[in-house]
């Protein structure tokens, strides 16, 4: 997500670490949300069996792929927006 973290020139050591930390936090947050969303969509909550069945397993695999694809699409779209208007939609 270079539009989030990219390109400030001449940054201090503390800033470099904070930036790396922010990227890791972002990835970890994405993983947490992916687990929430994909578990909800793929795992039958009557829990008749302790193992993942074939259907659940395949669903989870595809769910991860689709979640990444959505992430890429949204990221590309927002980079596009950010280039069109400087200023931005998310200022509070």
């Amino acid at each position: 997500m270079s539009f989030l973290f990219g390109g400030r020139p001449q940054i201090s050591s503390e800033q470099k670490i904070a930036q790396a930390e922010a990227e890791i936090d972002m990835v970890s947050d994405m993983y947490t949300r992916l687990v929430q969303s994909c578990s909800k969509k793929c795992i039958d909550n009557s829990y008749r069996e302790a193992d993942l069945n074939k259907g659940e397993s395949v669903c989870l695999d595809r769910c991860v792929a689709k979640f990444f694809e959505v992430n890429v699409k949204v990221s590309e779209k927002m980079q596009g927006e950010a280039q069109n208007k400087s200023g931005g939609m998310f200022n509070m």
Partner: protein
Amino acid sequence: MDALTPAEQRELEGRMQKKQMKEFMNMYSNLVQRCFDDCINGFESKSLTSREESCVMRCVDKHMKGSQRLGDRFQEQNAAMAASGGLSGR
């Protein structure tokens, strides 16, 4: 509440910058999750269908416009409330 001195003000702003970054990332992740949850419902393949993809694009557009609008109204209300001495008291 007592007014902050300029030095205190600068310290506060420094702390706020980190939070703004976090909040932006949180909003971004919310948007991804929300549009994924609302638009993706079939798992017959591992790629997005064109129908799902355009749903995601419209979802992002609509929610960005929505939060823009909500943010504008929120600031108006907040300013009005501060002027009338509302929630923050005094």
